[in-house]
Structure formats: structure tokens, C-alpha cells
């Protein structure tokens, strides 16, 4: 799969460095199911990579190995120069660099929106409460939730909750943002507000890896699109090539089902 990476590198206008290097990542579940079969992927700074694929293809599992939510048994992952290993210090360091947004939002229901956003900066980064709140308010304004800052998550719509979740991840000032099907649990009319937020974030130069089924978003925002199937990467290409001129039969088949 390394040959794909060569031609994507010239696609990036800026000469940028690799920030995620995953090579030969293998994972077996406890029941010996081989869920990731030697996956290689390199993501460059300021790049937006969209991972698509049928359900059960291992795409969510794959990005969840980046911040050690899923352990893997073979291969190596390096995030911003830090090797992901069993060393808890490295895991902590990587999680501080990597923000994640989940399909089910996973906001903390017992805390207000503002407290959700300030929690990690205060307890992990050890910021003063006032500073954390100031930055949280700026982020909430950016994602358009400022008026709801003192409400509880259950009082917000799904789209609003997901935008709070994005603000919460951004509050740690991560270098990389992972999105694990961020719009799959949303009503159709709320998908757009979340995608708009993600688009703004991409335009600001954030490195993003998104697992999503949103073709429009992938076409418009992604630098590269990845197709995964049954634990391997089938194809990596620019959005134009991926959607208009796919090289692999499996990709054509997948696209015919979703387009």
C-alpha cells in the first residue's frame, strides 16, 4: 500500500510531515476474529482523510487504535513522533494530542455543557478555571452553542450535542481530530450543522481522520479517501479519483451501493 502514499504526497500543496504513521497494524478480538489484517496508513499534517467502507470492515476499530481505545497485537503506530506502546506515559501523551468525536456523542450527562468542555483542560492540562472557561466559551461560540452553555446535554438536540462534543475535544487543543461516524446517530436535518462545523474545522488546517458515510463531505473536504473492507485497505485515492475513477473492483461495487 505504500505506492498510494507516494502519489498522495504530491497532492498536498504544502510540504508537510507525516503525523500519523500506522504500519502493519493487526488486531484480533478475544474470540480470535482477525479484525485488522495488517493495515498501513500515513496521515500528513493538515490533511483530511476520510475512511469509508461497509459495516464490519474494521474502520472504526482502526481509528480507535490511534488513541489506544482499542489495543492491537502486531504492527506499530506513531502519532506526532510518539510511539504508541503499552507505556502508559506515551498513551497519556498521545491522548492529549488526539481529540475524538463519537457516534453517540458520549457527553457527560451529569455536567453542564460548559463543564463538559472545561473538564479535561482543568483536570488534565491543569489550567485555571477562569482560563478554561474563557477558552470553552470561545469554542462554544465557534460551534454555535454559546446560549446553551449552562444547560445539560439532555436539554440539547442531537446536532447540538455533537457540536458540543466537537468543542469538548477541541478544548484540549489537539493536533489531530478523529471522527468516528459523527453523523450516523443524527436525524437527517441535523447532519448538516455538524458537517458544517467539521468543514470549518478542516478549513482551519486541523489534521482530521473521519470515518463517515457522507459522500458529499468526502468529495468536498477530504484530501484522500480510503476504502476499507474486511480488515484491509482496498484503495486510497483523491476524492476525484475515488468517486469518478476508482481503480479497484471492490471500490466500484461499494460506490454503486451507496451512490
Amino acid at each position: 500500500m505504500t505506492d498510494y502514499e507516494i502519489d498522495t504526497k504530491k497532492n498536498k500543496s504544502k510540504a508537510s510531515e507525516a503525523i500519523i504513521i500506522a504500519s502493519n497494524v493487526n488486531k484480533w478480538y478475544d474470540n480470535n476474529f482477525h479484525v485488522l489484517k495488517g493495515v498501513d496508513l500515513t496521515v500528513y499534517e493538515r490533511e483530511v482523510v476520510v475512511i469509508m467502507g461497509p459495516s464490519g470492515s474494521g474502520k472504526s476499530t482502526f481509528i480507535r487504535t490511534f488513541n489506544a481505545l482499542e489495543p492491537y497485537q502486531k504492527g506499530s503506530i506513531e502519532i506526532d513522533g510518539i510511539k504508541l506502546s503499552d507505556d502508559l506515559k506515551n498513551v497519556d501523551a498521545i491522548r492529549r494530542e488526539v481529540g475524538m468525536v463519537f457516534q453517540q456523542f458520549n457527553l457527560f450527562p451529569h455536567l453542564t455543557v460548559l463543564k463538559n468542555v472545561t473538564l479535561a483542560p482543568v483536570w488534565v492540562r491543569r489550567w485555571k478555571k477562569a482560563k478554561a472557561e474563557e477558552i470553552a466559551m470561545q469554542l462554544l461560540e465557534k460551534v454555535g452553542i454559546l446560549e446553551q452553555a449552562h444547560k445539560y446535554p439532555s436539554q440539547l438536540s442531537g446536532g447540538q450535542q455533537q457540536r458540543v462534543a466537537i468543542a469538548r475535544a477541541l478544548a484540549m487543543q489537539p493536533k489531530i481530530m478523529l471522527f468516528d461516524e459523527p453523523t450516523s446517530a443524527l436525524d437527517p436535518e441535523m447532519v448538516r450543522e455538524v458537517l458544517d462545523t467539521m468543514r470549518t474545522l478542516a478549513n482551519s488546517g486541523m489534521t482530521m481522520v473521519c470515518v463517515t458515510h457522507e459522500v458529499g463531505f468526502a468529495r468536498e473536504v477530504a484530501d484522500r479517501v480510503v476504502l476499507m473492507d474486511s480488515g484491509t485497505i482496498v484503495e486510497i485515492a483523491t476524492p476525484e479519483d475515488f468517486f469518478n475513477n476508482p481503480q479497484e473492483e471492490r471500490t466500484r461495487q461499494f460506490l454503486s451501493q451507496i451512490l
Partner: protein
Amino acid sequence: MNKVSPWIWLKKNLFSTWYNAVLTLISLLFIYWIGLAFIEWALTLAQWRVIEANLKLLFVGYYPQELLWLTWTTLGAIVGLGGFSWGILSSYSSLLKRKSLVILGIICAVFISVAFSVDRSNYILLSLPVILVAGYFLGKQLKRLFPELKSWLALIWLLSFFVLLWFLLEPIGIDRLSGLLLTISVALISILLCFPFGVLLALGRQSDLPAIRWLSVAYIEIIRGLPLIGILFMTQVMLPLVLPSNLQLSQVITAIAGFTLFTGAYVAENVRGGLQSIPRGQTEAAKALGLSPPFVIVLIILPQALRAVIPSLVGQFISLFKDTSLMAIVGLVDLLGISQSILANPKYLGRSAELYLFLGLIYWVCCYSMSIASRRLEK
């Protein structure tokens, strides 16, 4: 519902069909028969003097006469604190609402009747209603100055509990407590100890370390398989064997140890239910934010898990409170023990019905106020 006239209500709920009407009539007859018998007994045969004469004994037991002012001062402090909390927690004008006035009236009536039968010349007892209302207005005033005070209330109660406990026990030692005073002290101390113990056990049962997990499981399952009275006898007999011989444990302390060890296992199982009800996404989100495992547990999991199990935890504490009556069997003079010694007095021979009825009333008042407090806490 409230707007419906009583006749329509009766017809709809009690006489809607012929068999409902028959059931209603039979029940009414039954209630009438039981109620009449009880009232007849209560007004003619029963001799309530046994309670009036022994009220002080039931409440404070054999607390030394010359130090009794300590117990009254403690009661005054608790009542004042209760009024204070009421003032802080209540919404604006609630003292003037009918419901609050009725409750206040009942409380004052109880205070005054107790004061009259225990000690007529006791200023603290007589002024309890005044202390309650004064605490209420103090709470109101302070709330206006410090709106944050509400979140400190639990801490204030906890601190005053320790201060008052020390205040009560310092001059006489825990072993000389008896009566309701002993019951309440043992119950509260055991609740305060078994709660953190149970939470730790529940966390241990969920731990990734096999040794800790299996130890917790073994402890919980063994304790839950034993009767409380057996554990009480065991702590009375076995703790002194295990501990160094120069460390003499008082009987009350060993009883507290027994209650704590026993209820801790049950609290652990309740808390485990709460821990398991928290979706895995919560842990994952917290980890992804970089929170370390202790922070994940303390900031994210426990607050949600404990809130979810407040009703069953309070149920556990209520049953602990009632179980303290087993102290009478291992030779301590708690509320039940002191009633037995009163009944042994030839003067009050055969007055057990009156006395036990009164005991039931005291236990019920204590337990019911705990369940009211828990419903408040849930909100």
C-alpha cells in the same frame, strides 16, 4: 383529580362494579372492627404512663444526669442546622405556605410535648421550635449573601456530625451510650463507614487486577451468605482474638465494625449495579480526553453511578438502621435493649404492647425521614 367531588370519586374508585362494592364493604367492616378494638384498647386498657415516665430513659439512656445538657445542646444544634438547611433549600416564601406551616406545627407540637414529659424546666428543649425557625431565617439570609452555600451543605452536616459526636462522647466514652442515642450514633457511624467501604469493594469487583477482583468477590459473597447476627457475634468474639491483646475494643466499636463489614458488602452490590448501568462510551470519551483512570472513576463514573442507586442505597441504610436493634441481642443497651430493661421493672410489668408500639413509632419516624431525605436528594 382534586376537582372531582367526593361522591363521584367514591363511586368511581370504590363502588364501580358490584364486586368492588362488596370488597369495599368487607374492607370497611374489617377496618372498623380492627380500629375499634385498637381505639378501645388505647383509651381504656393501655397505660401510657410507662412511656411518659421513661421517655428520658428511652431517648438518652443512662447518660449521666449532670452531663445531660450536652445531649440537649446537641439536639438543639441539630435542630438549628435542620432549620438552616431548610431555609437554604426552600424556595422563596415557603414558610408561609399551608403545607410548611402544617409540618412546622407538627414538629413544634412534638418538641413541646417531649420537652414537657422529659424535663419541664429545660430551656433548650422548650426553645427547640424557636431554634428551628431562627435557623430557617438565618439560612434564608445567608443564602441571599452567598448563593453558593447550597453546595456546601453536605460538608457542613458531615463536619458538624463529627464535632457533635466528639462533643457527646468525649466526657463519657462511647461504651456508656445507651437508648435511642446509642441506636442513632451506631447507625450513623456505620452508615458513614460502610458507604466508602462498599464503594471501594464495588470498584474492586470491577478492577482489572485479578487479585483485587477475586478478593472483593470472595468478601462480598461470603458476607452476603452469613446472617447479620452471626457476624455481630463473630466480631464480638473474634476481633479481640485477632487484634493485639493490649488493644481492648469496646463492645460498641465491635458492633459498629460488624454493621460496617456487613452492610459494606450490600452497598457494594448496589453500587456495582450503578457502575454497570453507565454506558461504555462514557469511559471511552473520558479516556480519549486524556483523563487518567482515577479521574475517570471519580469525575465521570461514580457521580453518575451513585446518583442512579440512591434509592437502593437509602433502602440499605434504612435496613441498617433497623438492624441496629440486634445490638440488644449481643448485650448492648440500645433502644430495644433499654425497653427490655424497662419491662423487667416490676412497676411496668405487662406493659410491653404500649412500649413496643412506641418503639415502632420511633423507628418509623427515623426511617421515614430517611426516605423523605432520599427523595429530596434524587432531585
